[in-house]
Structure formats: structure tokens, C-alpha cells
């Protein structure tokens, strides 16, 4: 598995017109992720999406460092993004090409010079995830579950070491979210998963509870989820 390290990594954002000059999105955080399945849980706006986006440089740390397998994300962003794939909540933002096959081909542009090789590799990827039938469909006509699976196939086509997924099941119905969850948990890659699905979080090897821009609990998923439930119950 890969080693994702945060060394005093924090994120602040300027707030024009606000009371203070800047708002702290993530307080300086130090942690090391080496487990195969890591869940990030916490309320909306807690900073877990920001934390997830630090791992491949989508959000840059304003203080401290983020290091993936010895590569500093701030300086080696390109190499890090080759290793760390990212899946978004809303797959329609992620599917940027008109048809399913073309979208997967887009990921492979760097890996295969020839168009035929790219197409073959993309078809093989789609077949691997059981999506071969959808290859020539317009991404606009897919169901929500199909869209998320195609989006996953698109980012996994390049065979990254790590997949970071930001609430990948939030927009899906029960059957589709179960299907996406099974797909994610069955991947050979290391998976870091921001999620509101606490059952899914409990099936991971480690969970982090993020609240108000801080990691307030970290460890065994069952214990972390229990802590999260207790905290919510206490504020009611």
C-alpha cells in the first residue's frame, strides 16, 4: 500500500468582506495513512472534502506538507496525480467527454500514443468493470449508478495506486450505492473514502472523524462511528 503523510498540513481560505481576514478550513494536521481502506466521516462542511482533496493536490495546503510515497504534493503534483486518482460525488461533473468510451480514452491519452491502443485499453477497462455494453452510449443517457461506475472506470483506467473518493454514494439509491460500495471495497488499490454512509465506513480498516476542521477521532471504524453518533446525540 501507499503511504500518505500529512505533516502539519492546514488549509485557510481568505474571506473577502468577512469579520476576520481568513477562515480556517483545516487546522494543521499530522497523520499517516497506510491502511488499505480508510474512511473519512463527519458533518457537512467539517473539512473532510478538503482533507480528501489534499491527497492529490486538488487543494493545496497553505501550511505544512502533504507527501505521497515520498513525493511532495506541492512540488510533484503531476507525479502524485498519476498515482492518486480522485472520484467526485457528482459523476456528471467528472464525465467530461460525450460518450463513455471517449471519456475513458481521455484518461489514457498519456499512456498510449496510438489511438487504437488507447481504445483497446479503454474497452478492456470497461469490460473489467462489467460496463462493456455502455461503451458507445452518451454519458448523458446513463442512470446515476451507471454514471458513477463509468466515472470510477475512467479514473481507474490508468491503474493508480490510490483512489480517493469524495462521497461517491451520496447521490445514489440503495441498490446503486451498494453496487458502488462493493466495487470500491473490492478494488486492489488503496482507497480513501469520504462518506456519510456509516455502514460503509465501518467496513473500512480505519476511520477518521473530522469536525470543525480538525481530526477529532482516529482509529477503529466501529469506535470512530460510535464517537460520531455520540457527539451528534449530545448536541440535540
Amino acid at each position: 500500500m501507499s503511504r500518505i503523510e500529512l505533516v502539519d498540513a492546514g488549509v485557510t481560505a481568505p474571506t473577502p468582506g468577512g469579520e476576520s481576514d481568513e477562515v480556517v478550513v483545516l487546522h494543521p494536521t499530522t497523520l499517516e495513512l497506510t491502511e488499505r481502506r480508510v474512511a473519512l466521516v463527519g458533518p457537512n462542511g467539517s473539512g473532510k472534502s478538503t482533507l480528501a482533496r489534499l491527497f492529490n493536490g486538488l487543494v493545496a495546503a497553505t501550511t505544512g506538507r502533504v507527501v505521497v510515497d515520498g513525493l511532495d504534493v506541492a512540488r510533484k503534483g503531476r507525479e502524485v496525480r498519476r498515482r492518486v486518482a480522485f472520484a467526485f460525488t457528482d459523476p456528471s461533473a467528472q464525465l467530461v467527454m460525450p460518450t463513455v468510451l471517449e471519456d475513458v480514452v481521455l484518461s489514457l491519452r498519456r499512456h498510449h500514443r496510438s489511438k487504437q491502443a488507447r481504445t483497446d485499453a479503454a474497452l478492456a477497462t470497461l469490460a473489467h468493470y462489467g460496463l462493456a455494453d455502455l461503451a458507445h452510449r452518451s454519458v448523458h443517457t446513463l442512470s446515476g449508478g451507471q454514471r458513477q461506475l463509468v466515472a470510477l472506470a475512467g479514473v481507474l483506467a490508468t491503474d493508480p495506486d490510490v483512489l480517493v473518493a469524495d462521497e461517491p454514494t451520496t447521490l445514489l439509491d440503495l441498490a446503486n450505492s451498494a453496487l458502488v460500495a462493493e466495487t470500491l471495497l473490492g478494488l486492489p488499490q488503496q482507497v480513501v473514502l469520504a462518506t456519510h454512509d456509516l455502514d460503509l465506513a465501518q467496513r473500512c480498516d480505519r476511520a477518521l472523524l473530522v469536525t470543525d476542521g480538525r481530526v477529532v477521532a482516529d482509529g477503529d471504524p466501529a469506535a470512530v462511528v460510535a464517537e460520531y453518533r455520540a457527539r451528534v446525540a449530545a448536541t440535540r
Partner: protein
Amino acid sequence: MSATDLFGAYQPGRSVLHRLPAGAKLGGLAALSLVTVVARRWETSLGLLALAVALLLVARVRVRHLLRVLRGLVGMLGLLAAYQSWQRGPEQAFTVVGALGSLVLLATVLTVTTPVDEIIDVITRLARPLDRFGLRPELVGLAFSLMIRGIPIVLELARETRQAARARGLERNPRAYLTPLVIRVVAHARATGEALHARGVGDD
């Protein structure tokens, strides 16, 4: 929703038109467009219309798909025909509307027989001379695909925003409809940029 299907219209097939390289088809379409401007006569429009119908048959374009494309056009072409007949007589109206209609049909043949990917490859090749001015041809091609992909998304957002305005009884207030639409389109553009960034598209 005719426009949502304008693109992603590709129907896999084995006709002569399917096997023709995308560059030849695009070039042919461009040449025929030029003909309508240079030889602006009713005979030209009639010829083009006949050619378009012949090519639709050769490409075996599905009737349902064709009807969807036509449904979006009929209103506009009808208005144009009425205006031209009134201003310049029926012959001129046929020349203009016939040429326009046949070009749309020919473009339909192109989108049905050619995967968008191949059209974008042609655009990328054509943009290659721009390389020396620092404009990367792949990015030009990518911009075109994003535009094509963007059309159904913007239509979908427009539908959702209109429904949301109607649900609150604000359908007569253009601000209640346009403001959220613009904001959501920009938000979607940002999300797309983030997704491209995550996939390393801008990195190489």
C-alpha cells in the same frame, strides 16, 4: 429534447459513409456549405436536398433520430420561409431554407456516422499549426469536446432551475430563473475543471 441528442448521436455501422475518414466528411460538409453561398440558386438547394436525402439513406440514419432533429428545426425554418417569401418571393425562400435544411441534414449524416472522438482528432490536427504560437492542439480538441458535452448539461440545468422556480410560483420572475441558472452553470464549469485537474489532463 432534440438538442440533447444532437451530439452523442453516433450510430455504429458499416456503410461507406461510416468508413470514410472523418476529415473527408468534415471537408465535404465545409465545401458544400461554401457551394450554397457561391451558387445561391434554387437548383443548388434542390440538388443539395436530394444529395442529403440520398446520404441519409446510405448511412441508414434511424427515422426516429431524424424526426427528433427535424422537430427542433421545423419552427425556425418555417419562420424563415415565411419571412423570405414575404420579402423576396417563394423562389428565394426555397433557395435559402432548402440550403439551410440540407446542410443540417448533411451535418446529421456526419454526426451519425462519425464518433465525436474522430471529429475532435481532425480539429486537433487542423489546430497543429497553432502550436508555434504556444497553443497546444490537444487543448483545442479538448475544448471542443467539453463544449459538446456541455450542451446537454446546460439544458438539464435549465430544466431543473425552471422547475425549481415554478415550484415556488416564481415562473414569471426572470431573476428567479436566470440567476441560479448562471450560478449553477459556472459551478459546473468549476467542477469540470477540478475533475480535469484530478485526472491530470492539464499536467502534460
